């Protein structure tokens, strides 16, 4: 009888992470999550490009086409949507009590978080691939070769990681899917529209230019536009002065979120 109490399992952290990740990813094809992710990316492309192409295109873009100018913003919108889904999922998990259940089991306290972040990256990859495919259709091309295209994707996924961490922490903390759901829509549009991804800086009213120029989306758009390149040559070369601020914003978001996430996630609910 003592054998029963002695054979306490020593679960491997990696295996637990994989099981919890599979729990989130496996049902996505069936429950429509992948379909919705694809639809959101396509909708983001269509809803920005089709109405704005004739309105925004002009010689002062200094780009070969508005598609080439716009796609970095579309990619970022797709990534943002993926992260807000993560927040919504985290809030649902939190309110349904499965987090509390995990805390009562021999699972390291950050393993469920790691699993949800992995699932978030999976959503980001779907969003990125679909947005790039849709961008290809409207005329977006990588002009600087394979390596820069790879860096373009890596930078995008890094932002996705930062936003997923932020979204997950917000969702877990709020424990309120209804309130989180509302964040799906308007904030992204506001941040996206007030960035240089939609039109060049000089077309904004003068008083708001410093804000537009320095906000994170704009900085990321500058970096992504440079990495994608252009046939017309109006894009700045890839230098640290272009990539640096984008990286700094991304790392900054993570640096602020990570300690907060640990506090939120360790708290007994």
């Amino acid at each position: 009888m003592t054998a029963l109490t002695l054979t306490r399992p020593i679960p491997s952290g990696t295996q637990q992470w994989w099981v919890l990740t599979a729990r989130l990813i496996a049902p996505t094809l069936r429950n429509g999550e992948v379909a919705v992710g694809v639809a959101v990316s396509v909708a983001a492309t269509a809803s920005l490009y089709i109405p704005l192409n004739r309105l925004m295109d002009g010689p002062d873009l200094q780009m070969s086409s508005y598609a080439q100018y716009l796609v970095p913003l579309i990619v970022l919108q797709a990534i943002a949507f993926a992260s807000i889904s993560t927040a919504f999922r985290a809030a649902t998990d939190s309110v349904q009590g499965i987090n509390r259940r995990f805390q009562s089991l021999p699972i390291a306290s950050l393993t469920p978080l790691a699993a949800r972040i992995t699932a978030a990256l999976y959503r980001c990859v779907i969003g990125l691939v679909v947005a790039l495919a849709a961008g290809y259709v409207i005329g977006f091309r990588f002009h600087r070769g394979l390596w820069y295209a790879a860096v373009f994707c890596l930078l995008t996924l890094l932002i996705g990681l930062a936003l997923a961490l932020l979204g997950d922490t917000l969702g877990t903390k709020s424990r309120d899917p209804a309130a989180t759901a509302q964040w799906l829509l308007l904030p992204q549009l506001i941040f996206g529209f007030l960035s240089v991804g939609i039109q060049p800086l000089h077309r904004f009213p003068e008083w708001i230019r410093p804000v537009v120029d320095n906000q994170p989306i704009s900085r990321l758009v500058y970096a992504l536009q440079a990495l994608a390149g252009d046939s017309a040559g109006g894009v700045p070369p890839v230098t640290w002065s272009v990539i640096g601020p984008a990286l700094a914003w991304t790392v900054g978001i993570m640096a602020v979120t990570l300690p907060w996430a640990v506090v939120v996630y360790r708290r007994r609910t």
Partner: protein
Amino acid sequence: MAVLEGVPVVGAAEAELAGSENSLRSLLSQTAVLTGRLLLRSVRSPMTLVHAVLLPVAFLLTLKVVFGDSITAITGENALYRSVPLVALLATMSGSTTGMVGINAERFDGFLARMWSLPIHRGAGLLSRLGAETVRLVFTTLVVLGTGMALGFRFHQGVGAAVLWVAIPVIFGVAFAAVATTVALYWRKTVMVEAMQPVIILGATFCTGFVPVDRYPDWVQPVVRYQPMSLAVDAMRGLSVGGPVLSPMISTLIWCAAIFAVCLVPLLVGYRRASTSR
């Protein structure tokens, strides 16, 4: 025993006084109570205020800053006469998602089933949601309108037109809420909230309130011109700055009535199902 026997007698007497469960009187009074409950819940959660007030206002300002000058230059009239209606409509739609999540939450924590088992008029549950939604729609529309007025939006067609202007987003919002609630009752997975987002975004961006119709590619112009949000924006533009009203107004009402009629039966059946089974 005597006490227990007394209970149904008192209950019956009270029921006599208040009217039976199916009477119009109890429908009205119970709807009022339940509407109050829903409104109180929204008022007490600070996020509702953010969503009903802050986000639409911020979005209206964004549209003004980003596209205002370009649109005004093209059309020759203040872009606000398009963007204020657009944001009013958008705010009504984006707020409906809270209701979608709410009705599903109440379904799963058993509140709907509990209400079904009480002597409450069968129509009170859904009518109270309609009532609370209408209050929210009027409030949000007035907030957007107030912001527009502060930016320079004016009514040039008199008081009657202004009242009609406010009524359009409310009518449209009720029709959209019917769609959203029906979807929520049948598709209970959390993805459905996300699934509504592309619909809202495409509706708002393929709309005459976003960009004038002749700026769209030719093949998509008919869609832009005749989709309900464009027609509603056109009617509201006519009611404020002037222009054709009757035709877009009638088309908008037909759209809304049709949407509401299509959703009505599935909505009633779905609500009954949600109340009687988990």
